[in-house]
């Protein structure tokens, strides 16, 4: 299952090292008497965390991009901000997508050239993409975009460092907005309210680990044991396995978000919510306002709206949604089935936002769904859950399994 970030988050959060590191960081943070010392200690802890898990090769890219982003934003020059954004995106494309792009765009036309390019790229690249490259590039692009638009740049290098490599959210989100993060950081550092933060933080972390360790990990083992006989299973059995797949990803991912939000809360810092009961959504728009909220809002603000949003007619709007979600899918991993999953959701959003305009059947279906909201809920969840097959399995396997769900 090609979720590199998920595997890495598991390797990081599900370690005793992380528990002890987090406990030590929080305790020392609160014992320090001065705000400046707390800020410094947090920065030291974030650097130690990053170096421990990323290694020297993994730290270098983020340090370089941090310096470029910080200086570009401080200059407040639009060309500097755009240039820095391009460099961040180029770095992400190189580390995460270079081999995929060569395989997709070069190898089909010239296998020999593709092989040479792939070999060269592998020679330049570290063993794995730098830790959290997807997350910190997105946060840097957001920051530069907002500064270019007139937002106030971060003046303090220390605060920028913390924004860039804040350890709770570095590995698996949520993707932060600097205009929310910095005031929260200032409030935490200057005005401790320990008991409430500790209680809420512990509660959240406990909930996150319960979802992850007690539920999601067991579901993973169950799915692993049952997916082999998906085709041989009864119709009910196949839908049951699909339900466990859908449940597993929600518990896994929202569990990590809870852990991240809880860890930040232990320090008194508030991170944005990332999930809001997504399987209660009654339409796809609603679903994407509840699922991975920090990513979907980033895609909306920095891809969909700059492309034109819904301001240029129906056709352009549909195209913008498809492109935005194709990129959303690609963000999850360098593979065609991720892109297809994104396009699947983009197409679904285009249809669900406009089906009522279809002559004849459209208004009838719309009226029915409004009269019986459960119909909309069932259709939405079926769409989303079947979509998970594209997300987790190679395309042809996913199509085959989807067909088997409907007895084909």
């Amino acid at each position, binding site marked *: 299952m090609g979720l590199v970030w998920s595997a890495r988050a*598991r390797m990081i959060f599900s370690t*005793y090292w992380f528990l002890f590191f987090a406990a030590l960081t929080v305790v020392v943070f609160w014992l320090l008497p001065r705000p400046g010392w707390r800020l410094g200690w947090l920065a030291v802890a974030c650097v130690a965390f990053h170096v421990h898990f990323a290694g020297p090769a993994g730290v270098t890219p983020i340090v370089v991009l941090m310096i470029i982003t910080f200086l570009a934003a401080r200059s407040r020059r639009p060309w500097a901000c755009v240039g820095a954004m391009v460099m961040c995106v180029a770095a992400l494309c190189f580390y995460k997508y270079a081999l995929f792009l060569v395989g997709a765009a070069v190898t089909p036309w010239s296998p020999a050239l593709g092989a040479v390019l792939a070999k060269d790229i592998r020679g330049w690249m570290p063993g794995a993409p730098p830790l959290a490259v997807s997350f910190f590039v997105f946060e840097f692009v957001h920051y530069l975009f907002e500064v270019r638009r007139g937002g106030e740049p971060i003046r303090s290098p220390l605060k920028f460092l913390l924004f860039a490599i804040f350890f709770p959210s570095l590995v698996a989100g949520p993707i932060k907005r600097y205009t929310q993060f910095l005031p929260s950081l200032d409030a935490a550092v200057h005005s401790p309210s320990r008991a409430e933060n500790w209680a809420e933080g512990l*509660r959240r972390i*406990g*909930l996150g*680990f319960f979802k992850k360790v*007690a539920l999601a*990990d067991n579901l993973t083992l169950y799915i692993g044991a049952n997916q082999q006989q998906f085709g041989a299973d009864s119709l009910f059995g196949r839908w049951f396995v699909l339900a466990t797949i859908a449940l597993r990803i929600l518990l896994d991912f929202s569990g990590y978000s809870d852990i991240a939000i809880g860890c930040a809360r232990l320090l008194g810092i508030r991170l944005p919510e990332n999930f809001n009961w997504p399987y209660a959504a009654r339409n796809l728009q609603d679903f994407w306002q509840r699922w991975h909220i920090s990513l979907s809002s980033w895609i909306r603000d920095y891809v969909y709206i700059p492309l034109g949003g819904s301001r240029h007619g129906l056709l352009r709007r549909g195209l913008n949604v498809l492109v935005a979600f194709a990129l959303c899918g690609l963000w999850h991993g360098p593979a065609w089935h991720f892109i297809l999953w994104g396009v699947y959701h983009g197409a679904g959003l285009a249809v669900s936002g406009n089906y009522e305009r279809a002559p004849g059947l459209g208004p009838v279906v719309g009226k029915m769904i409004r009269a019986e909201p459960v119909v909309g809920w069932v259709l939405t969840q079926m769409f989303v859950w079947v979509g998970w097959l594209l997300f987790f399995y190679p395309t042809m396997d996913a199509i085959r399994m989807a067909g088997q769900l409907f007895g084909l």
Partner: protein
Amino acid sequence: MTPSEKYLSWLERLPAPVVNALTCALSVLAGAAVAMMFYYLLYRLGLPSQPFIYVAF
């Protein structure tokens, strides 16, 4: 009345000291439950993600 509205109105009818005591008790139980979860987490982190498959040779 929805269930949550019924629950809220029942809560509002209780005397304040009772609500206080209930809240404190609930808080203690919640803390203990989270402690149990951490205690379980410490155990689960030590288990490998895949079991050992024994092969005789």
